[in-house]
């Protein structure tokens, strides 16, 4: 590949970086001594409609962006990423880690006027989190009962120790409570409330017009004093990214969350004073770009080939020229934004070294005949344009060391089926979503014994007893310090064996009007309730 041709992009990328760096400072300036203004309608870009809106039964940003304003969780994360009570006021765990007691806030009512009690928490935990909620069912696998001695106390009983710091970091996403009285009869999945959610949150559901918009209005009986400030939130369904950017410019949208616009539009709007384009407020939604190896291919089962592939790709060059400030060099499955678990960069790494890559491939016995050693089929996930760019970059980089790569593109359902169920891939690339604690959705990428077909899990045909043991020990270790050390071991081990390579770290990008105040002030801001968000005149 002629890499010098890519240099054209560098100038654009640098301009982009500068523009974004300048704007990141903006939100700070905005907080300076202004009196919050009541009122106003906040228009939000909603790119991909989900099948339902209840965050108690579906953990995804597409649900939180709406349901998270209407329903509330037991705990959320504060500005420093530490757990802070929402519906729960306080919590404590017994030393054996098998009992966790939550004290709930008093005087909270559901939007339909019924009181919120520990019965609601017990019902949601046992019937939704444990049985239906994705990732919740794994987290709460050993939950045996939730006792409710009084309306303000919920006692979670576990068969095996549950580390409190794992539970508290998982609950912001996996701890949304639904009303028992609305769900206790009939099939929860088919309950009409899922499309007209009722919660305790600052905004009340008003209307959902499929394919067009969703409206929620201010809840006058909200439990936090003086909140919320906004009168109304409107989510507008806009599937075309370029059209959404035009609507931002026309003033029809105030906020496009989770990298909802194209990279070039985000860069362009970053230079416009009317908008703030930043990764701030998305630290809790970190993700890494992956290369997933299929060990059923004899070439890839050889560790030298996997390492050679890693050495053959110039990741810093790719980031600088294609992703700009929206990404940084990754060092493994636990991203650097995870202050509680990040083991530092001193785990085995594979810096760009073409000569070494060639030497490793030669050593493994895959000699180049006519410039070609072997061919691999690469399946990129369709989630974002970065994956598409990254797969082309992999293809060209590996071509340079004599590995021919054929890219096979699929839509979402097709990608998951082919990679995680049919195993019809050699290399796959997509996103690994890190959810604030490695036990939530990270270790399943490495733990053996995952059922065939479970997406984003170890389907590589790779098994390592040491790694399995480390993962199992960490999942039930109640001492936070020991737990962190175990996860550091885990990163070292998987970076050595390299069944999946995670060389790029990304955080979602927010595009928001410069008139917004109190935005992006927590690590999962897009998903939170926005009770303190307001719009300046």
């Amino acid at each position, binding site marked *: 590949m002629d890499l010098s041709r890519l240099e054209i992009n560098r100038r654009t990328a640098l301009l982009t970086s500068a523009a974004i760096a300048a704007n990141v400072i903006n939100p700070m300036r905005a907080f300076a001594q202004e009196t919050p203004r009541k009122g106003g309608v906040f228009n939000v870009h909603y790119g991909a409609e989900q099948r339902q809106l209840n965050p108690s039964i579906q953990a995804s940003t597409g649900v939180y962006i709406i349901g998270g304003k209407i329903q509330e969780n037991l705990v959320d994360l504060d500005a420093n990423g530490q757990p802070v009570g929402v519906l729960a006021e306080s919590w404590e765990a017994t030393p054996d880690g098998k009992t966790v007691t939550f004290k709930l806030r008093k005087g909270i009512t559901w939007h339909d006027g019924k009181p919120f009690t520990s019965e609601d928490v017990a019902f949601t935990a046992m019937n939704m989190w444990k049985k239906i909620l994705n990732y919740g069912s794994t987290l709460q696998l050993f939950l045996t009962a939730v006792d409710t001695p009084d309306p303000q106390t919920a006692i979670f009983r576990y068969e095996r120790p549950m580390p409190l710091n794992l539970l508290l970091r998982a609950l912001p996403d996996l701890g949304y409570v639904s009303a028992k009285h609305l769900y206790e009869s009939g099939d929860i999945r088919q309950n009409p409330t899922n499309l007209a959610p009722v919660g305790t949150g600052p905004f009340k559901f008003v209307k959902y017009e499929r394919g067009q918009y969703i409206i929620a209005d201010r809840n006058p009986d909200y439990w936090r004093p003086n909140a919320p400030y906004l009168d109304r939130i409107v989510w507008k369904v806009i599937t075309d990214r370029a059209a959404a950017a035009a609507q931002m410019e026309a003033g029809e949208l105030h906020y496009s969350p989770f990298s909802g616009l194209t990279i070039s539009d985000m860069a362009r709007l970053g230079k416009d004073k009317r908008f703030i384009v930043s990764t701030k407020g998305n630290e809790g939604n970190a993700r890494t770009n992956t290369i997933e190896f299929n060990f059923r291919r004899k070439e890839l089962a050889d560790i030298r080939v996997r390492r050679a592939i890693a050495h053959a790709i110039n990741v810093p060059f790719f980031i600088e020229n294609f992703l700009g400030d929206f990404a940084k060099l990754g060092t493994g499955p636990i991203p650097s934004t995870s202050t509680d678990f990040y083991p530092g960069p001193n785990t085995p790494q594979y810096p760009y070294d073409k000569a070494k890559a060639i030497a490793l491939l030669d050593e493994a016995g895959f000699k180049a005949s006519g410039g070609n050693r072997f061919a691999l089929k690469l399946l990129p996930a369709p989630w974002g344009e970065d994956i598409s760019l990254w797969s082309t970059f992999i293809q060209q980089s590996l071509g340079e060391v004599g590995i021919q790569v054929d890219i096979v593109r699929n839509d*979402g359902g097709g990608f998951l089926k082919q990679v995680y169920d049919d195993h019809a891939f050699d290399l796959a690339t997509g996103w690994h979503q890190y959810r604030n604690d490695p036990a939530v959705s990270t270790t399943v990428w490495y733990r053996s014994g995952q059922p065939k077909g479970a997406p984003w899990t170890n389907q590589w045909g790779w098994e390592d007893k040491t790694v399995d043991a480390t993962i199992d020990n960490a999942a039930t270790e109640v001492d936070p310090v020991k737990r962190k050390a175990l996860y550091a071991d885990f990163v070292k081990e998987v970076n050595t064996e390299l069944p999946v390579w995670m060389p790029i770290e990304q955080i979602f990008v927010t595009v928001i009007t410069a008139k917004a105040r109190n935005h992006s002030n927590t690590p999962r801001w897009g998903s939170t309730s926005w009770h303190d968000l307001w719009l300046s005149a």
Partner: protein
Amino acid sequence: MRILSLAGRRLAASVPTLFLILIGVFLLLQLAPGDTVDALMAQMGGGDAATAEALRKFYGLDLSVPAQLGNYLWHLVRLDLGFSSIYGKPVATVILERLPPTILLMTASLSFAFFFGLVFGVIASRGVNRWPDTLISTLGLIFYATPSFWFGLMAIVVFSVYLQWLPPGGFEDIGTVQTGIWRVLDIAAHLVLPTLTLGLIFLAIYLRIMRASMLEVLNLDFVRTARAKGLDETHVITRHVLRNALLPMVTLIGLQAGTMLGGSVVVESVFSLPGLGRLAYESVVQRDLNTLLGIVFVSALLVISVNFVVDLLYARLDPRIAAEG
């Protein structure tokens, strides 16, 4: 009475076709990797195997393919289009909700294209190889060659972002509740840009067909006879030439009514309109078989009925067709 028997015969002939199309689409979608649960997993960001299994049972995907197809056809015979897995509602309801914006957009842009195509086609043929013809033909070519998403986006940038004359997208204004005439005007304002975007491409086709057809008919003997009778040029054109030249246009409108239903995905996406094209696209990506088959069914019905109307129009425009048929 003759019309009714013709309609009956047409309908009887289309039933087998309809079933073949539905079975074909059903089997074709089986070839696509992944099912609606995979698509849902992709949307949710993952889940465990037990969840997936429960969902497959929930959507009836644990049955064999022939059993699923059998089930579907059995429901269809009883005029039940089934349940949409993305919308959690009966497919018939979902389609009915999406039909008004689609039909509105379709009729508006087809009428726009038909009317201006006709006018410009006639003008071009009258001034053939002179400047009006060259100008119109060049413009037509430009409209035809430009991709509709680009047209749409540029229209938004010019008319909504800079000039702020028209709304950039959506079907109606949701900030304020409007009723009666104001609501009609509001929807009309929202449909101006999408109609033009969709219509311009069809306009190009219509004007070229009209021009060619006019030129052909102008050289026929009866036109010379009409002129020889001493009729003035306007009469010759409107009474004799235009009526005969319209036949290919009518054929074309019949053909395009069908494609426009599904063909407006791009325009619907760019202007965020809740139409059938986007619904069809979404059903494919989400592997929502029932909804997709429902849309195919409704589109097929529409094509059949439009073609029936076109046949009747032929007879009206050219009595010889009815006499021979």
